[in-house]
Each structure stands twice: as structure tokens, then as C-alpha cells.
């Protein structure tokens, strides 16, 4: 499978994402510079973390007008899977590909630590291979990760099972204390209604090998790969 890893000025998790797809997942991947305008031949798109455009104006606000984002819109509209990680999640929200917004952490602190995630919905290309009941231990590193949307939107997310990942404690409970940034309903990541576009604040690409302290993140990439392979098998 061919993965595109987007690069904006000041993306800084692009190398990690490419490394995981190529060397851990064993797939083909290439960087796509934000000035490019085609995703031809790509099977999946990763919008990596970082501080695109220095977070000027709002996180992700300027990156979303980069030429490549038009191609991402079209790719997503055709049903292609798009995964936004951290700043990538912020960019997808700004672009309207995902509902809501990420705002300043409630504590006002930049949080850089490992957290636990519960899988709130397994029926998505990004979570299907994660064993039932398994908690993911992943790092977070963000100052603007507090998920916000109006009540109607959050109700809709819940009703459609679009909340994929929630911050929990080691016992798997979504408590106030286990919520590192004040996100509504402990939301760490969501998908769109069609389920092919997802974003999350934690960094699975930084926790995909045991050497890094956790390989739980790989389950997300493996889910995506299995989904792509199933799609190809179905088409054949």
C-alpha cells in the first residue's frame, strides 16, 4: 500500500510517521510537500504532527489553505482514509473535514506525558484491529488539545459512534483526572460521519516499537492497513 505523509513548514512528526509506515508496517510511503497538489496513486494519507506555520493565528488555520489540502478534500470525498495526528487533527478540524475544534488546554500547560486511551468504537478503519478492552498507552505533547464542539455536534458524535478514542485512567475509566486537557467527554480522537477521516491528539507514531516503551500505537496503523487490504480484496 502507498501512504502519503504530508509535510508543512514546521511539521515535525513527519519523519516518525514515515518511519513507522515504511520500516515497522513494511509499506511504501513518501513525503508530500504542502505545495504539491496531487495524491495520485496514494491509498492513505497521514497528516502528521508539528507546529505548521508556527501555529500562527490558530493551530492548523493556515496549513488548511495549502494547495495539498484541496487534494486531501477530494481524496477524502472519494472515501480515501485520512489520519490526522496532533497538529494533523487540528488541521483536519480547521479544514472542516472533522467537526469541532481543538483549543488551549484547560490547564494552560503544554502537556507532554504518556496517557491511556480507551477505544470507544471499533467499527472504523483506524480501530478495527485493536483487541476489545485493550487500552492504548501513548504519548501526548500538545498545548492546544482540548476538544470542543457545540452540544448538538457532540451529541451527534456520540450517537453516530464517531468518538473513537477517549482519555481514561489505567483502569479504563474516563475520569476528570485522566483527561489531560479538558476535552469534552474525554475525547482524544474522532472520525467523520463516513468514518474514513479520523484525527487524534496522542501520537501513535511515537509508540509503535517496544524499544520506545510502548508499541500500542502500531495497532492503529495495523487497523488501517488491514482495512486497505480488505478493500483491495473486495474490489478484486
Amino acid at each position, binding site marked *: 500500500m502507498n501512504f502519503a505523509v504530508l509535510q508543512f513548514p514546521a511539521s515535525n512528526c513527519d519523519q516518525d510517521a514515515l518511519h513507522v509506515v515504511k520500516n515497522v508496517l513494511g509499506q511504501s510511503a513518501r513525503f508530500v510537500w504542502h505545495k504539491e497538489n496531487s495524491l495520485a496513486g496514494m491509498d492513505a494519507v497521514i497528516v502528521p504532527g508539528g507546529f505548521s506555520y508556527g501555529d500562527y*493565528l490558530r493551530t492548523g*488555520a493556515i496549513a488548511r489553505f495549502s494547495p495539498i489540502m484541496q487534494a486531501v478534500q477530494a481524496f477524502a470525498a472519494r472515501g480515501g482514509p485520512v489520519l490526522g495526528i496532533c497538529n494533523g487533527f487540528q488541521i483536519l478540524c480547521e479544514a472542516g473535514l472533522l467537526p469541532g*475544534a481543538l483549543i488551549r488546554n484547560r490547564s494552560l500547560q503544554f502537556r507532554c506525558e504518556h496517557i491511556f486511551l480507551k477505544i470507544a468504537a471499533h467499527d472504523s478503519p483506524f480501530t478495527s484491529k485493536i483487541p476489545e478492552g485493550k487500552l492504548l498507552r501513548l504519548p501526548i505533547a500538545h498545548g492546544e488539545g*482540548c476538544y470542543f464542539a457545540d452540544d448538538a455536534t457532540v451529541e451527534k458524535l456520540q450517537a453516530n459512534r464517531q468518538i473513537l478514542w477517549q482519555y481514561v485512567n489505567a483502569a479504563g475509566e474516563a475520569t476528570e483526572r485522566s483527561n489531560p486537557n*479538558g476535552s469534552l467527554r474525554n475525547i482524544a480522537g474522532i472520525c467523520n460521519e463516513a468514518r474514513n477521516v479520523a484525527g487524534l491528539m496522542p501520537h501513535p507514531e511515537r509508540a509503535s516499537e517496544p524499544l520506545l516503551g510502548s508499541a500500542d500505537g502500531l495497532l492503529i496503523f495495523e487497523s488501517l492497513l488491514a482495512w486497505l487490504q480488505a478493500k483491495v480484496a473486495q474490489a478484486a
Partner: protein
Amino acid sequence: MKAKIIVTPKKAVLDPQGKTVANALEQMGYKGIGAVHVGKYLEIDLPAGDKESWRGRLEEACRKILSNPVIEDYQVEIE
């Protein structure tokens, strides 16, 4: 001509920055102040021309990029 644009967090959105500033002011002895909201101020130089047409264009820019309507309100003044 000059446009002055003020972007503020919507009242329904948690504004931890505003709350922290309010607490600091209170501690410094500025008793009795109400809620504080921290926003952004943009000044844009414009060529002389039709004020109302610029207002329309800048309001569009506010909706598209200068503010995020999910979390922010904006005001455009042209003078």
C-alpha cells in the same frame, strides 16, 4: 483606510486564558472585576475605496480564516 478586527472566544467556549488573567487581576487587588476574555486584534491597511464592499470581503475572510466560527466571534470596523 484601516480595518480593525477583533476576534474573541465565544461565550459558550471555555476560556482558561481569560479566567487566569481574571484571577491574576483579582490577586493584584483589582477587586470586583467580572469575567475576562482574551482575544485577538488585527489591523489591516486598506486602499481608499468603498467601505461597505471592504466590510463584506473582510467579513468573509473572518469566516474563512481570521476566526474559527466554531469557537470564536468577530467584529469588523473600518475607519
